[in-house]
């Protein structure tokens, strides 16, 4: 029996009641991204009953689904048609929902080559801080009418409104996929990635764990095979990338706090206390370290990057420059004047 249900009216009613009573709302799907941001106190809005794929036409390369739809269900439907979400959003829990994936804005190992979640968002339906269910963007590839409110929702952690439906661009799965393991040191791996990045090689994921460089090649038969010949190394089970995305590699077992470092792709090796795992071809570094957030942030800012803590609390979201924070507040004030949506999830007073 289908579990698909359109509960948008109930969600709208709940928001309108919160607006009348001035109640803060804590928006939650599968609660799989609770380690990010700050804890929110408020009445629970559970999106999981509002679920189901609304439309999916593989030849249009667009899928539209309700926010509470499990990511697994979306991926299964795409897989059946030979397609995929190129940004590979991490689930971090079996109950992860589409709405949560978009609101968190996290992207998997293909990010530097294929783009982030926000790059695939074509349209959204959003319940706003004025108690209206509105539609932005749509199901077409190109749409520059009005401000891009849909992409603004990606990564906003529900602080600007309640997502009820999302349309995403999807792509065909690559014809060939092959993963490699090349033993080499960190410096050598980063230098090789910097060089290969300037060449039309079919690399779609690159990770280094201190011992070896792991590469995924995706494309047509010809390009994948010729790159494989050229790069050498041993073949690797492609499940590695799933484990990396879901933080299931042995690296993540270390009990020290986990930090995500987002840095310019050619930053080179970063000398920081703790253990590091390089992802995104160098643009994302996972760090297991007991160092203070402040000291890590200062070091990473030197190379033009920022640090996210993967434990709920004050140290999770990277701080914003004062001027930028002021415009964040102005935007929040305009779109959620009563401050009912996930107050404080990203920053205090936001």
């Amino acid at each position, binding site marked *: 029996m289908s579990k698909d249900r359109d509960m948008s009216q109930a969600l709208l009613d709940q928001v309108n009641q919160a607006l009348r009573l001035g109640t803060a709302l804590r928006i939650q799907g599968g609660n799989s991204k609770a380690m990010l941001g700050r804890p929110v106190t408020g009445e629970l809005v559970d999106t999981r009953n509002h679920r189901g794929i609304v439309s999916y036409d593989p*030849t*249009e390369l667009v899928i539209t689904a309700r926010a509470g739809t499990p990511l697994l269900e979306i991926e299964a439907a795409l897989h059946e048609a*030979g397609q995929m979400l190129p940004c590979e959003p991490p689930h971090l829990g079996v109950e992860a929902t589409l709405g949560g994936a978009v609101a968190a*804005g996290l992207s998997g190992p293909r990010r530097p080559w294929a*783009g982030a979640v926000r*790059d695939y968002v074509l349209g959204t339906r959003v319940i706003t801080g*004025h108690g209206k269910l*509105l*539609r932005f963007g*749509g199901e*077409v*590839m*190109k*749409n*520059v*009418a*009005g*401000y*891009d*409110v849909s*992409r*603004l929702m*990606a*990564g906003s952690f529900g*602080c*600007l409104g309640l997502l009820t439906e999302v349309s995403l661009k999807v*792509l*065909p799965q690559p*014809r060939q996929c092959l993963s490699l393991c090349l033993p080499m040191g960190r410096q050598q791996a980063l230098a090789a990635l910097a060089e290969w*990045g*300037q*060449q*039309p090689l079919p690399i779609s994921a690159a990770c280094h764990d201190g011992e070896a460089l792991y590469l995924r090649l995706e494309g*047509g*038969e*010809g*390009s994948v*095979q*010729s790159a494989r010949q050229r790069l050498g190394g041993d073949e690797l089970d492609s499940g590695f990338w799933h484990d990396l995305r879901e933080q299931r590699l042995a690296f993540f077992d270390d009990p020290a706090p986990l930090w995500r470092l*987002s840095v*310019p*792709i*050619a930053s080179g090796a970063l000398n920081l206390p703790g253990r590091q795992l390089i992802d*995104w071809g160098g*643009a994302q570094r996972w760090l297991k370290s007991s160092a203070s957030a402040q000291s890590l942030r200062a070091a990473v800012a030197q190379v033009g*990057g920022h640090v*996210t803590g993967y434990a709920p609390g004050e140290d999770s979201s*990277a*701080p*914003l*420059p004062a*001027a*930028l924070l002021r*415009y*964040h507040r102005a*935007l929040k*004030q*305009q*779109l959620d004047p009563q401050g009912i949506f996930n107050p404080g999830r990203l*920053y205090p007073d936001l």
Partner: protein
Amino acid sequence: MNILYDERVDGALPAVDLPALLQALHQALPDLAILHRAEDLKPYECDGLSAYRTVPLLVVLPERLEQVQTLLQLCHQRGVPVVARGAGTGLSGGALPLAKGILLVMARFNRILEINAQGRFARVQPGVRNLAISQAAAPHGLYYAPDPSSQIACTIGGNVAENAGGVHCLKYGLTVHNLLKVEMLTVEGERLTLGSDALDSPGFDLLALFTGSEGMLGIITEVTVKLLPKPQVARVLLASFDCVEDAGRAVAEIIAAGIIPGGLEMMDNLAIRAAEDFIHAGYPVDAAAILLCELDGVEADVHDDCQRVAAVLTQAGAREVRLACDEAERARFWAGRKNAFPAVGRISPDYYCMDGTIPRRELPRVLKGISELSEQYGLRVANVFHAGDGNMHPLILFDANRPGELERAEAIGGKILELCVAVGGSITGEHGVGREKINQMCTQFNRDEITLFHAVKAAFDPQGLLNPGKNIPTLHRCAEFGALHVHHGQLPFPELERF
């Protein structure tokens, strides 16, 4: 309804004491280039949408960030509207001046600040031309992917403001997909950095919000774009069809075969004939439609995909499929498409270019609707179509010297956009709303959605001094536009479901 700024429906603009403003500008910015004589202002009265003209109050041509900053502070204090402009190639009137506003021309910010091959980015000033970035990156085997057809002239600042597209969007994305960072000045002259040198940045994705905001939220002062490795090879297939529906189906079949072409363009018979007459590209002038399919990437993959696509095209009913035999022929095939607009300009005294997007499956229905409208209004329409991503460019042929034809062209253009919205599409895929489609915004969005857009604007520019009247209509304008509709009778295409 007139699309020039109308204070009655678009909102009152503050009166400006021109001599006092000029004096203040001279005093605060003694070395700023300011144009104020009628003959100097005239060349700036329009952008690429030349049917609409307004002579600006003043034109300023700053060369340094501090000048722009001081100018904005001064205008903010005095309540003077500011319209930003790059090369002025935009097709929707996004840089159409205001009689009571300053036109801020950013074209002199034309330096490429950094090409970083290892980091795969280019850091440039906003007045740098789109193509100049790819030219500067070429020695490293890199390029900047978005390629609007005006790329030899248009500036990157304008591209960001309009979220410009081009013929390779399906595979390589729009401007928004190819940016890392934008440095901007707020209406108060405060510096903000949106995005970062990394692939993401903390907080809300203001870079995404800002891209395509048409100069309404801030002034761009520096742009960092991503560079990509140049594909090894590119090949083009030209397929001719006896009916447009088959061509439309062929597009869906190519996608269904798991192939994302670098470019996938369609032209209808009128566009084919105009282009062939002008460029002699070797197009079949008796075909109902042609498809141009470009496949790019690594040699071996491109070779295989060409064979796959050729088979799909034949299967879908193409009567002929030709692979460009060499680089010269490939360039010729593309020249016909890239010159389709001027080619149409040769067969008609004037033409009006539309920019709607639709779900691709609706193509046959929309083309039929356009041809019915064409008959009804007595104006020819040539269709050029970014078929891969559903972006249509119907070209309405008219003669502005014949009384009433411009108005008829505008009217049919509006109807075509409303048709796009009715089938689930958008009134603009890449040209922007500007002034041109300000009325049709009222068709695509309801009053609550438009109200939310105004709230976004208010977060950055509460007084509404940056590019007033563009992109988002006032509710007053929508009310008048809606009233006009009812007055003229039924909504278009009553048989279509509205959503």
